[in-house]
């Protein structure tokens, strides 16, 4: 079976349980089991080749640009791990089917489990370290889901997050390490990397790469000081613990160290980091395990200890040690999985895992007891079980290991660890099963059905068989695995009896000491509990809480909702980088002569400056500042006229008026004064920022004004072709409707959108509770009588058609003279607004026949359609055309598509301005206002009414 398929099968299988859950729990488990089984069978088809020393490859490119390929390979090491993962996985699937209760969402469980299984298979078969990273992180993610499976339990959520955080952190470090490693080796393919030991170990980057990769491996394999997450992961359902935390996930780190052993091991750095970490972890785990009362916690620390053991062996860097490591990986997987399942059974039956509440179960659960006994003795390293064999190897190797000149340190500590190991193993057996039967179990313990104990029983059989017949049973497997790990062919001796070696004495001492410790346990336990010691979980949570608080502090502190500060930061930042940009360039001398200052500009400047200054001083009086803004607008408009920009002057002043009307409409509902809120220092700071920015812009403007263009401006082309190609003499207008008509198209759309937004806002506000407020609102100022004075009404009636005439004039002349659709539109709109102001909203709105939305829409559509019309000539969008028409007796006149485009502009502007103003005016609209009469005081009407009354 293809390696792709083997790696993919669990993932494919993960799809089914979730979908099949409606079909029942058995179908669910069956689907999961089938996927695992198929993958296992597929794996086994490669067994002959593996045992023959072959390596199987499967390659496909994924992201070759990065060197990431979906390359898989299977050698002894991969085969061993894949076998463990898939076979124990099968057992777990079976076990879980009976372990989980009806309330547990089993479909999800199997989905997560298979995702995890797939990720693990992926790790052990990857031939590309980037691909391996992907699977690596996937195990973190899927284990997060598995650990947090019981989401209602706080321990589950915390444990899951802790595991994810720690292993995720390691994974991220490993990303960096792997990228460095691949960079040194010139490839991310493991088979290539493994060929480059010299290059890697001589590189300057070897140590950082090693540290980063080991960080990943250690966190995953729960090595000191990252061991603390593993016990908290025990909040997971027991099948998860049995799978992830004995046989698979925690072994991923070991796998990685083994995988890269040929290129990373053998240096002093490797030895001191890996072996020492392993040694410390082994001892520490064993010690803590002895004092854990929770069965699963005990097993978890035991696992930590055994992982340390294997790590230490890998760290020794010798081939013999590698053999020992491989062997112990197998042994630990068998007995520890069995023990976890046993603990699960006890929990399941007795409804507690607390050793202090257990004991005497031997009588009630003989089968479980048998399994636990065998597996437990193996864990303790008691012959003839498999744990003994590999522990002997470890002790033997430790006995010959020299640590920085000290011959005794490693053997002594290893023996001590073994001693504790014996003690906690015996405690597990004795305090749970031995002793008198108790009356106060929370549940009614008895042996479970076959389904639940089958899996551990099978593993226990393996424990025994491997122990007794290690050579023939696992010898070849250990051999090919060791070959793969070491990249050589080390001698593999697997025997129960080695003779009277130092290891045997150490072992015996450990057993005796262990028994002694167990006897002293009650006394030691009290001492342990009284002794102050750092609580890893508290430290971790403290750090996380600290980081979270920091994050929250930074986030809230920076994003405090004060846009005034955001804006100040923006201005200061802009100023800073602009000064940097300016000072790092060069500025030539002025190339233009300064123009003389006439009376008019001087007066204009003075007006502008004084008005602006007054706005600053008096801005708290909002109405007054609007009047002052009116002055500024007027002066700016006059300046445009003076500086040869009549079109701009027209636009500026018309926009100005509409803006003022708009602001006045809004101000009606707002406070009329601005309070003083900022302290003087803040105002000083703001003033400083503003002055700095103003000086900067003024300097820039001055520098620019005093120098000519560096190249001829493209506007020379516009001047040359405005009449010939654009048919108009007003270059500005021709640019607007022709050369850069697309800008104008966008511009009218902006205006149309603005009106739509305002309309939508009005609707939203008037649909909210604000409406009631508006209806009941008392005017906050004196209301003079006669809202619609007759003089104004009459004048605006006369003015409106005239203003529209002017608009038409401006519109048609725009192409050749100042004007155009935009200004015409504003004037037309103002002509209508005049009616609103003079005769009242209700009166005017009632007489307005065209919906403003429609006017906007038609404007944009007319402009767009004019643009599209060009397509019929097979020329681009907005290509203009013009021609001259002669109709007797009239003189020839021009027809231009640009005028049609300008008509679109005109309509859009009229619609937009009116829609915006009308929307705003609706806020003030009170029901019941008379819409029949424009003029409030009209004696003619009163006379008429009086006459009618008299007649009637």
């Amino acid at each position, binding site marked *: 079976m293809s390696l792709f398929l083997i790696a993919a099968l669990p993932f494919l299988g993960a799809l089914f349980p979730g979908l099949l859950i409606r079909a029942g729990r058995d179908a669910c488990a069956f689907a999961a089991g089938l996927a695992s089984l198929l993958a296992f069978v597929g794996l086994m088809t490669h067994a002959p080749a593996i045992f023959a020393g072959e390596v199987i490859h499967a390659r496909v490119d994924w*992201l*070759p*640009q*990065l060197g*990431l390929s979906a390359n898989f390979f299977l050698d002894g090491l991969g085969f061993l791990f894949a076998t463990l993962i898939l076979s124990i996985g099968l057992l777990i699937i079976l076990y879980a089917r009976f372990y989980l209760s009806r309330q547990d969402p089993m479909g999800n469980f199997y989905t997560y489990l298979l995702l995890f299984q797939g990720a693990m298979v992926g790790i052990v078969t990857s031939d590309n370290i980037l691909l391996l990273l*992907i699977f690596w*992180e996937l195990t973190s993610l899927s284990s997060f889901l598995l650990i947090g499976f019981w*989401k209602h339990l*706080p321990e589950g*959520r915390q444990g899951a997050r802790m595991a*994810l*955080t720690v292993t*995720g*952190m390691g994974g*991220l470090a490993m990303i*960096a390490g792997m*990228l460095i490693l691949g960079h040194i080796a010139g490839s991310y393919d493991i088979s290539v990397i493994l060929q480059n030991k010299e290059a890697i170990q001589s590189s300057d980057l070897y140590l950082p790469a090693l540290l980063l990769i080991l960080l990943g491996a250690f966190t995953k394999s729960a090595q000191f000081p990252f061991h603390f997450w593993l016990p908290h992961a025990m909040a997971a359902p027991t099948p998860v613990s049995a799978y992830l935390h004995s046989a698979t996930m925690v072994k991923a780190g070991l796998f990685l160290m083994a995988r890269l052993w040929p290129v990373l091991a053998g240096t002093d750095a490797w030895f001191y980091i890996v072996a020492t970490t392993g040694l410390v972890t082994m001892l520490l785990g064993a010690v803590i395990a002895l004092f854990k009362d929770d069965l699963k916690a005990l097993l978890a620390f035991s696992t930590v200890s055994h992982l340390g053991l294997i790590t230490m062996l890998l760290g020794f860097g010798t081939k013999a040690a590698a053999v020992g490591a491989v062997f112990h990986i197998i042994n630990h997987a068998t007995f520890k999985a069995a023990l976890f399942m046993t603990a699960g059974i006890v929990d399941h039956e007795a409804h507690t895992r607390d050793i202090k509440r257990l004991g005497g179960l031997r009588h009630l659960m003989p089968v479980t007891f048998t399994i636990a006994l065998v597996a437990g003795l193996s864990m303790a390293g008691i012959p003839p079980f498999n744990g003994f064999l590999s522990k002997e190897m470890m002790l033997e190797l430790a006995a010959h290991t020299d640590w920085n000149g000290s011959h005794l340190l490693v053997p002594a500590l290893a023996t001590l660890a073994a001693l504790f190991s014996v003690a906690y193993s015996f405690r597990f057996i004795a305090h749970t099963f031995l002793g008198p039967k108790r009356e106060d179990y929370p549940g009614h313990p008895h042996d479970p059905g076959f389904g639940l104990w089958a899996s551990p029983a099978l593993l226990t059989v393996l424990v025994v068989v491997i122990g007794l017949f290690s050579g023939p049973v696992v010898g070849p497997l250990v051999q090919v695995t060791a070959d793969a790990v070491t990249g050589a062919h080390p001698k593999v001796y697997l025997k129960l009896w080695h003779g009277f070696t130092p290891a045997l004495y150490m072992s015996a001492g450990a057993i005796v000491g262990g028994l002694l410790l167990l006897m002293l346990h009650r006394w030691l336990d009290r001492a342990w509990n009284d002794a102050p010691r750092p609580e890893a979980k508290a430290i971790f949570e403290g750090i996380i809480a600290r980081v979270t608080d920091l*994050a*929250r502090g930074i*986030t809230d502190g*920076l994003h405090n909702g004060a846009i005034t500060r*955001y804006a100040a*930061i*923006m201005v200061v930042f802009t100023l800073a980088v*602009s000064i940097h*940009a300016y000072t*790092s*360039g*060069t*500025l030539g001398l002025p190339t233009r002569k300064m123009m003389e200052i006439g009376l008019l500009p001087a007066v204009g400047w003075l007006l502008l400056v004084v008005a602006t200054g007054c706005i600053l001083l008096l801005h708290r009086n909002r109405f007054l500042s609007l009047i002052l803004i009116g002055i500024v607008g007027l002066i700016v408009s006059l300046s445009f006229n003076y500086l040869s920009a009549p079109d701009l002057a027209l636009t500026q002043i018309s926009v100005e008026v509409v803006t003022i009307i708009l602001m006045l409409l809004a101000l009606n509902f707002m406070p009329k004064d601005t309070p003083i809120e900022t302290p003087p220092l803040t105002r000083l700071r703001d003033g400083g920022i503003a002055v700095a920015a103003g000086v900067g812009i003024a300097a820039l403007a001055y520098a*620019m004004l005093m120098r000519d263009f*560096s*190249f001829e401006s493209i506007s020379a082309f516009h001047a040359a072709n405005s009449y010939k*190609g654009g048919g108009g*003499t007003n270059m500005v207008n021709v640019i607007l409707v*022709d050369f*850069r008509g*697309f*800008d104008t198209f*966008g511009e009218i*759309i*902006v205006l149309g*959108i603005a009106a*739509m*937004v305002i309309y939508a806002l009005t609707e939203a506000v008037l*649909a909210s509770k604000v409406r009631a407020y508006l209806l009941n609102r008392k005017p906050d100022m004196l209301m003079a009588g006669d809202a619609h004075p007759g003089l104004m009404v009459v004048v605006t009636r006369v003015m409106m058609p005239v203003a529209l005439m002017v608009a038409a004039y401006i519109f048609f002349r725009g*192409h*050749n003279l100042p004007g155009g659709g935009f200004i015409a539109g504003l004037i037309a709109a103002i002509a209508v607004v005049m009616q609103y102001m003079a005769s009242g909203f209700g009166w005017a709105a009632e007489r307005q026949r065209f919906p403003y939305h429609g006017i*906007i829409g038609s404007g944009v*559509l007319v402009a*767009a359609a004019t643009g599209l019309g060009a397509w019929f000539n097979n020329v*681009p*969008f907005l*290509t*203009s055309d*013009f*021609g001259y028409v002669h109709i007797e007796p009239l*003189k020839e006149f*021009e*027809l231009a598509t640009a005028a049609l485009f300008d008509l679109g502009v005109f309509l859009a502007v009229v619609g937009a301005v009116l829609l915006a103003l009308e929307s705003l005016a609706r806020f003030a609209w009170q029901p019941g206002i008379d819409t029949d009469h424009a003029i409030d005081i009209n004696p003619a009407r009163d006379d008429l009414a009086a006459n009618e009354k008299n007649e009637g």
Partner: protein
Amino acid sequence: MNHLLIAPVVLPALVAPFIIMALRYHIDLQRVFSVASCVLLTVIAVALTAQAADGTVQVYELGNWQAPFGIVLVLDRLSALMVLLTAVLGLGVVLYAMGSGWDERGANFHALFQFQLMGIMGAFLTGDAFNLFVFFEVLLIASYGLMIHGGGTRRFQAGVQYVVYNLIGSSLFLFALGTLYAVTGTLNMADLAVRVAELPASDTAILRVGAIMLLLVFAIKAALLPLHFWLPASYANAPLPVAALFAIMTKVGAYAILRMYTLVFAPDVPAAAGLMEAWLLPAALMTAAIGAFGVLGSREIGHLAAFGAITSVGTLLTAISLFTPEAAAAAIYYIVHSTFTAAALFLIADMVMERQGGEITAKPVMAHSGLISALFFVAAIAMAGMPPLSGFLGKLLVLDAARDHALAPWVWAVILISSLVTILGLARAGTAIFWKSHGLDTPEDYVAEAPNPAPSTALTFVTVIGLLGLLGLYTVAAGPVMRYAEATAADLFDRRAYVETVLANRDRPVEDPNDAHSHDTFHHADHNEDTYPQPDAQSEESH
């Protein structure tokens, strides 16, 4: 002349006014037209991408005026990709908005939506700097409308801030464009490239100020620290489907930086040398870090998604600010990923928000909790850059591209640690919202329902699943996509093809459309001396 080039701009520009003109009171028809427009846009975008994929640069001369004198649209690999991205995202968001009923909670949603798309499309396609400003404004003003869609006090307040901040940005844009024009005398990007490259040393000071101000404008859009402050409150208070659409807006800024600072102000151009090397990369890294901290520190799911968007922008800008072809390719790959991811996260946040409100805390179990949590999990993976989704690949690409940079250790450290912090934050939020709820004492059958019953819940799920599915596809197809990205990056750093194609016609003579009169500049004078179009001329009847 390939009119397809302008279709992404014109199509929504026709649909939107049609909707407000004719369909204002017919939400069903609005939806039909809006979706049809988005589908059509997607088809057009696919066709355009296919056309651009071989590396040809196409130019569309609006008004038949050649560059640099008129405005041109330019289709190359990069703009095609961005157009496609926008179209697909737009389709997804409009479907979600319909499914969730958001489009009915205020006036003019679909018209604004189409205009928004038009603005974004135009910004990606235009080859003219001032036209870019215009399209920025189009997309901004449409976004103002969408942001406050549905109303509400907080939304209005955030809306004011959003608008004000961006108005300052627009002012800066004009200062920048003015400065550039004052020095170079041109607005066309390709022409700018030519002129800036030939700029005499005596003019560099002014030009550089313009160039840097322009960069800041784009940085505001892209939400680069310390110009990102507008984003969190705006996105979090906007209707979240709108925020999902806004996911593309930060990319407009990123795109503009990528375009202008490889084409015109590339670091190898003397006039632009040393402009931003000193601070852009650190700022980008800070952005990623602040975003990650924000994810961890968020109290509210909208903020969480918003800060997620910021951190991915940080990563993206980190890649861009390395200014190498490899890094640009990584950035291009990452753009698509981060857009879809941020959008999906916002949509999922909306699902949560609609059902149980925005705070990141345990609430009674909501409807569809399982499915939503699964979607959140996938989106979170993508956002944090965890395998197996494209975020991981994107991050690897960025890290890989940064390897030879002097600040490489910083880049690596910040990106990786930000990832970790993001993971922490997302895990924290996810467990609180989806898991902890199960720990609450609630009646067995209690299910918190959405306050606004949606017209079609299924459609919302289909949309989100579709977006995440696209992410999956994007991950699997990373190889071909990266080939495209690398080719795009190569185009960016070898700007000759772009410049030459755009300016190919600059010396084309101008024809008088009215041949009969073309022998004289002012033909009226031939007929009648005093009807010459001076102040007293007769052409006012040109209608």
